[in-house]
């Protein structure tokens, strides 16, 4: 064992029905390291979180612990902050988390300004930033909702924060378009989803007719994401296409693939591998 190799996986979770939290708790015996699952309320009301964390008679040394961040509550909006007494406390909790998680030997995702779980933000963020980072990535043609009339094709209007909504066809008058919405040209094909943990991927609903080049495009995207991103657990959505698939969104919650029977096995294997690779890189 190298110095950097963790001896514990700490799962911080806010929702027991989150597919990742549920799978890890159910499959704890198959993880390479011991799993300690701590709920949000246990973190806030029971643990002592100083230089080392102490909880339930256990001492958790961040430098020897892999942290799996599943604090998914913020995705549901401001009301989710009600576990604390004020918006001030919630902001301070969030920024404290952002600093604290960087002390761990491994972290599955770091909080971002838009989410304590960490994410690539809205569809607008993703469609703007990811093609800059990943050569050849195709995203839908898009613009502010008010520009829907200048886009050509099957134009949809969507709330860019609803990563799992395709929105609705842009038939409404410009004056009735909700503020902050996004217009995009919906590609012709069906959506399929790719689960990613580190460099491991599965695509249980990928279209059977996908040919090698198309699949190579997806693999290339996920390799880039693995290299670029501090978010290790993701689910990507692509539109099937005659050419290379068109990227729609990436989300830290495996909403679709997490329901598949194979997901738990995939998650455990991918996480074991990602933590090991990370610790080997850190020790090198």
């Amino acid at each position, binding site marked *: 064992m190298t110095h950097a190799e963790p001896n514990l996986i700490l799962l911080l979770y806010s929702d027991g029905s989150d597919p990742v939290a549920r799978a890890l708790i159910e499959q704890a015996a198959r993880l390479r390291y011991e799993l300690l699952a701590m709920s949000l309320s246990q*973190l*806030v*009301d*029971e*643990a*002592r*979180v*100083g*230089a080392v964390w102490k909880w339930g008679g256990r001492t958790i040394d961040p430098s020897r612990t892999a942290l799996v961040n599943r604090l998914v509550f913020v995705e549901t909006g401001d009301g989710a902050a009600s576990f*604390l*007494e*004020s*918006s*001030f*406390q919630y*902001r*301070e*909790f*969030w*920024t*404290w988390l*952002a*600093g604290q998680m960087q002390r761990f030997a491994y972290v599955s995702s*770091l909080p*971002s*300004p*838009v989410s304590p779980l960490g994410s690539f*933000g809205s569809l*607008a*963020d993703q469609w*703007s*930033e990811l093609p*800059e*980072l990943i050569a050849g990535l195709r995203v839908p043609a898009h613009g502010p909702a008010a520009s829907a009339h200048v886009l050509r094709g099957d134009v949809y209007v969507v709330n860019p924060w609803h990563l799992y909504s395709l929105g609705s066809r842009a038939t409404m008058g410009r004056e009735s378009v909700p*503020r902050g919405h996004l217009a995009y040209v919906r590609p012709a094909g069906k959506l399929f989803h790719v689960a990613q943990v580190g460099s491991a991927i599965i695509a249980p609903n990928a279209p059977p007719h996908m040919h090698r080049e198309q699949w190579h495009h997806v693999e290339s995207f996920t390799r880039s994401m693995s290299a*670029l991103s501090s978010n290790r657990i993701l689910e990507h959505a692509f539109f099937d296409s005659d050419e290379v698939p068109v990227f729609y969104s990436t989300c830290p919650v495996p909403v679709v693939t997490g329901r598949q029977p194979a997901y738990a096995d995939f998650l455990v294997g991918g996480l074991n591998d990602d933590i090991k690779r990370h610790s080997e890189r850190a020790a090198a």
Partner: protein
Amino acid sequence: MTSSAIANALLRELSFCDDAARPADQPCAFAFALDFEPGLVWPDFAFDTSSPLAHYPAEARDEVRAIIGAVARLMGTKAPKALGFVNAHMKTALICKSDAIEGASSASNREVVGSCVLTNIHAPADSVLMCTEALAHETIHQYLYKTEVADGNFCDLTEVPTYRSPWTGNRIPLHSFVHACFVWYGLLTLWCQLYRQVGGPDQVSPVRDKASRAMFGFAFVRQMLASPAFPLTSVDPGIVAAIECIAGSMPTLDRADLEKSTLRDSLRRWESGDWAGQLATGLQQIAALAPA
């Protein structure tokens, strides 16, 4: 001037934490002009600032003047360096009202250095604090524009790609993000200064909340700068160093307290504690240690 000298000047000039009293010859009033009937069409704006529809009727203007007067008194008595700063760099405020903008808003544009637009400032319940923020915010932009004209741009001025502001959530170009770091630094120093000067929980609480909002964004700035998506080489190295210096000075929960208390109790104590006062001292040190 070297880039670090420019960056250090920013850290000093934009710090409104200052124990010095208002000079006796400085009135508690703003020197800039209030333009209630602007002829100027503000560039790239949500409405036509020259349109009579965007002008306050004559009978509504005293309310706006009263708000701005109260801001001047607040700055003059509690944050005199901020009042002097506004008077040095703001020449004209276009005062408009419009349904095209939701609530109160303010704007600057590097094509119109020395001026800003204040829209719907009568609207919010906390109009004095909102207007204090707006005037400090827009005056900082004027100072930054002037500095860039004199000493060169802080970064690439291209409009794309855009980055998400960790303060507002808006997607903004690189040059706006760089400006935002200094604007929020200046605002943070202003709120900390006011925190030290205002009395009573009713006044302290909103000021402390505004300081906390300013501080929040800085918790993520270093992460943004380190991101592969961020064009670090397109920003002047001295400016990057100054931003990192600001971001590194943000306080967080007391670790010693966390050793013996729950997170909930520590957060409660932190909220009611003197973190803003300590931060004010830290920010003053940053400004003082930035050599000319």
